[in-house]
């Protein structure tokens, strides 16, 4: 740093000297340390290539020592242009894909029809964790999108006062529910990590396109198929990234954070956030409208045995072995 400033001073001094000589100024100028040895904003900005111009302040707020921070301009472009495009394309694109998929494939029915026998798929704790994460995610997603898209889409018809009032509550909800979401993601990680490591069956699943095409047959899968495993790892790793960057933004300047750190955190938070929303839209579709017999696994925790055999054949075999070779008909859920 000292060498850099010495270099700047030298250049500035030389330039000023040349300027004075050209004007045949009577006052002799010193190349080092004199009044002409000043650095100018332009030169510093060029030297720093977008870095911070910082000095010393005598007030207690030491972060005020940043004089000029040109990176704010890049962040502005990201937030007002780039993020809107990424978010718009990801979310609207996903909705369009889902509509096309639905028109083509319709609701995927249970081929063998309902057997009338049910098998426990998710116990009470699994469902609690799912809905804790899901409900907070929906609120975090809506309130998060409001920050990026609300000004353009919602403000014009709510009016400034009502939109500000809603957005302030949205901010509080986003900040405080993040803690519940964090608990959900941590529990989900611990609860399902054992069933989400890749297996050989996943390769078959991918080769068969997940059995999602018409007449594509059913790909074998354990408790979670390869698509669900990808979702799981996105929720865990993407969720962790959202949580870390989110807390950086909730706790400004804690632990030596700089404005540059927070800008970077917002970039990751925004991009992963919109991709997260797009992915969860697909998850919601497949869990409800897209597939017959799937949603009940997260309501009372049970699924029809025929549904389970078609979509999670290896998992059913596992369960049967545990219960002595017969698919145990469940008269009552496990809890």
């Amino acid at each position, binding site marked *: 740093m000292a060498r850099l400033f010495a270099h700047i001073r030298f250049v500035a001094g030389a330039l000023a000297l040349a300027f004075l000589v050209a004007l045949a100024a009577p006052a002799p100028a010193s190349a080092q340390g004199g009044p002409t040895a000043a650095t100018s904003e332009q030169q510093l900005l060029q030297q720093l290539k977008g870095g911070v111009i910082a000095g010393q302040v005598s007030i207690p707020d030491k972060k005020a020592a940043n004089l000029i921070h040109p990176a*704010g301009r890049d962040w502005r472009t990201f937030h007002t242009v780039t993020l809107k495009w990424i978010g718009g394309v990801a979310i609207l694109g996903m909705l369009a894909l889902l509509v096309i998929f639905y028109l083509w494939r319709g609701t995927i029915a249970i081929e063998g029809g309902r057997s009338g026998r049910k098998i426990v798929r998710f116990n009470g704790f699994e469902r609690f964790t799912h809905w804790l994460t899901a409900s907070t995610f929906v609120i975090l997603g809506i309130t998060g999108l409001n*920050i990026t898209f609300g000004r353009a889409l919602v403000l014009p018809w709510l009016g400034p006062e009502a939109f500000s009032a809603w957005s302030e509550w949205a901010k509080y909800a986003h900040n405080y529910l993040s803690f519940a979401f964090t608990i959900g993601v941590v529990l989900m990680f611990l609860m399902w990590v054992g069933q989400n490591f890749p297996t050989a069956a996943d390769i078959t699943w991918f080769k068969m396109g997940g059995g999602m095409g018409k007449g594509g047959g059913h790909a074998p899968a354990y408790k979670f198929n390869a698509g669900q495993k990808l979702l799981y790892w996105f929720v865990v790793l993407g969720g962790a990234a959202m949580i870390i960057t989110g807390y950086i933004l909730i706790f400004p300047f804690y632990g030596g954070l700089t404005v540059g750190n927070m800008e970077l955190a917002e970039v990751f938070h925004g991009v992963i956030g919109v991709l997260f929303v797009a992915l969860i839209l697909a998850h919601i579709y497949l869990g409800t409208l897209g597939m017959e017999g799937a949603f009940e696994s997260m309501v009372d925790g049970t699924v029809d045995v025929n549904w389970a055999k078609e979509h999670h054949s290896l998992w059913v075999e596992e369960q049967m072995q545990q219960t002595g070779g017969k698919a145990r008909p469940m008269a009552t859920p496990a809890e």
Partner: protein
Amino acid sequence: MARMKFLCDADRCIECNACVTACKNENDVPWGINRRRVVTLNDGKPGERSVSMACMHCTDAPCAAVCPVNVFYTTADGVVLHSKDLCIGCGYCFYACPFGAPQYPKVGNFGSRGKMDKCTYCAGGPEADGSKEEYEKYGANRLAEGKLPLCAEMCSTKALLAGDGEVIAQIYKERVSKRGYGSGAWGWQTAYRESIAT
């Protein structure tokens, strides 16, 4: 209408911090917030310069562009003001600002930000000029009284200039040509995308 700007002549600033104090007093600035500050570059070394910096009231202000609830507006004088009634304290204007001007009183738990506060160019806010509500939220409205911001008005070395951009640029140019040097109008390149040719 004039296009109001600030210009700090770093070759005159003596880092007395009187502008900081004057601002705090005139506007009853909340505890912990400095609308104006003096930054010293190369402190204690040859070529040391001090610059008094606050909100520069940028052309095409970044804070206004990123605000999710659109609280900013530019007056006919080119002053960038905001509404504390509409502000939700999200912190985005601070990320976008190249000068670190927006600040937030700490309210409640964690890092909860209150309503943003920044230099108003001593021009108050959206409330009626000179009203009690305006003073409580934003401080003085000297501009409505025909006066310039107090920081510049009382600067002992006249390093800090406030007024119409063309007028203060002319004053600065004359100074530079007379004394033979000048380190430029700090912040102008970033705030107004122009520098003063000297």
